[in-house]
């Protein structure tokens, strides 16, 4: 379990995404992009199967749930699996950078797979891959098909256009 500051940090991400986030993958990728944009809560990310992933964030979310800062509900997806939805009623933080809520809410409304593709490409850009989108498509072929990669690029452009302390890499 992570420390109490991180638990508050995890809950604040849910708050700034509009009070709820559908899915663990989306939660992770929102947190990743907030860090990349310089408006994050200090979570470190590494590459895992689903792209950039923070074990500390996963632990912090559990800690936040234990402290009732967030509520995690599980639902059954159409494909037969279960996914989580995170809720919080944490009060707003007036000192929050305006980019944070804009970014988080844009991502909260995005498709989970497209957001995963965009986050993966951004992570690979930081890892200095010469063509992060091509590498993303190579690593996640079944997710990149059906026009998702193109839509992920459009999502990325929308995120890039939100003024933030750190500019997302041009890819």
């Amino acid at each position, binding site marked *: *379990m992570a*420390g*109490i500051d991180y*638990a508050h940090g995890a809950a604040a991400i849910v708050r700034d995404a509009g009070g709820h986030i*559908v*899915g*663990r*993958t*989306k939660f*992770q990728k929102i947190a990743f992009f907030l860090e990349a944009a310089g408006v994050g809560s200090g979570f*470190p990310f*590494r*590459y*895992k*199967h*689903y792209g950039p*992933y923070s*074990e*500390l964030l*996963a632990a912090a979310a*559990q*800690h936040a*749930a*234990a*402290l*009732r800062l967030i509520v995690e509900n*599980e*639902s059954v*997806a*159409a*494909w*037969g*699996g*279960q*996914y*989580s939805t995170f809720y919080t009623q944490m009060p707003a933080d007036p000192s929050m950078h305006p980019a944070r809520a804009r970014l988080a809410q844009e991502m909260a409304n995005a*498709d*989970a*797979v497209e957001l*995963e593709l965009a986050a993966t490409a951004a992570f690979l850009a930081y890892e200095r891959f010469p063509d992060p989108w091509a590498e993303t498509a*190579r*690593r*996640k*072929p*079944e*997710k990149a098909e059906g026009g998702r990669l193109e839509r992920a690029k459009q999502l990325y452009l929308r995120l890039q256009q939100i003024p933030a302390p750190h500019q997302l890499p041009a890819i």
Partner: protein
Amino acid sequence: MPKQQRIRDPLHDLIQFDVERSQLEGVLWRVLQTRPFQRLRRIKQLGFSDFVYPGATHSRLLHSVGVFHTARRLMRVIEKYLPAKDARVDQALAAALVHDLGHGPFSHAFEKIGERFDLKMANHEAVSDMLIRNGEVSDVLRDMGSGFANDVADMVSGSGTPTIYSAVVSSQFDADRLDYMRRDRLMVGSQHAGIDFEWLVENLEVGEVQHGVDETSLKPVQTFVLGRKAIFAAEAYVLGLFQLYPTVYFHKATRGAEKIYTELLTRTITLIKDGSIEKTGLPKTHPLVKFAQTPDNIDCALSLDDTVIWGGLSLMADSNDKWIGSLAERLRDRKLYKCIDVRAKIAHDKDDGAASSSEADEVCAGVRDEIVKCLDEWSAKSPDEPPRILIDEVERSPYKELTEGAKGPLSQINIRTEGNHLADLSKRSNVVAALKTYKAFRLYHADGDEEARRKVMEIVDAGISKWPA
């Protein structure tokens, strides 16, 4: 008779590499001879578990060979359903052999240190990836084709679409788990947690299951499923793995040793990074010193193994830094901190069912925060003293540990029903359905440190007294 290379294994008995007739097995036999693979001889599979089970000294080298051997068995299952030759067969078999190449000394405990200092070369997945794609192992693998090493690395890292071939490397019935569950049980000397391996393999089938990300559906993928006659074998498999966690992997003494090791190396690396090598007791040429100074250098990571750490303990025990000196001596002589099991105390004070309840989670989270505050205060007063309380929090679900994504058919055990559809094991087994996540929350203090013990008990008692309504 064609030449065979042979290894005797306490678990599988004879493991043979057909180096003349099989190009792959000839190549993999040469991978065994490389420095990165030989290094696995000096990394124990179970880290500090031999503090509890003295027989558990088996190496990651033999486990890796066992995983390859098991993967060959699983491939025979796949061949019954998909007889056409597929390039991914060889990739998956090679991946099974090299999947553990990147582990550092005391594996998972070392990764925790890497997370504290953001050391990429302490992350076994990153190191495995580098060792497979570049260097000696990669050079040997390239004899199978120019892109083979990269394909193997992708298979190990789990990149790409999940397929039945990647299921051999990573799934509920992957070769890794089918080897370590049986090997670890054998070597610790336990008589519980046995599985009916032959029956499980005999009843494995290839099935197509749905999967997705969060609420989004993706195309169905092939993975291992079990025939209906294996339901009790599957039940024992889940229970066996579940039992190994509290009794072996999360044993309080093993975890206590890991915590001491983590704090010892944290202090050592901090001093080295600060330029105070002389305080560590280690010579400037020690591999741990070189690693801390150049943590991005793969050769420095390759120079580390369990024996390097064990060899350094007596030097560190003589360090004039109290933190390093005392913890190195404790680890060398197995003088571990005393354990207070908070969830066991909750069970005692409330009731047995309360120990893993959400109310207990809330209490443990509060206790943890109070302990951290207390440690911060003590650390501010005496920054050169070792931590007086060590915290261990861990949990394990009955199924494969989930890190991200949704729970679903790909991460569950699926049983083929009489009606020829797939059902989750928990829907068919009341025993499995009743299993709850195993959770442990322990606090450790030095024997003789009565103030720390009292403080722990005070915080724990206060936490339990605020039992949520």
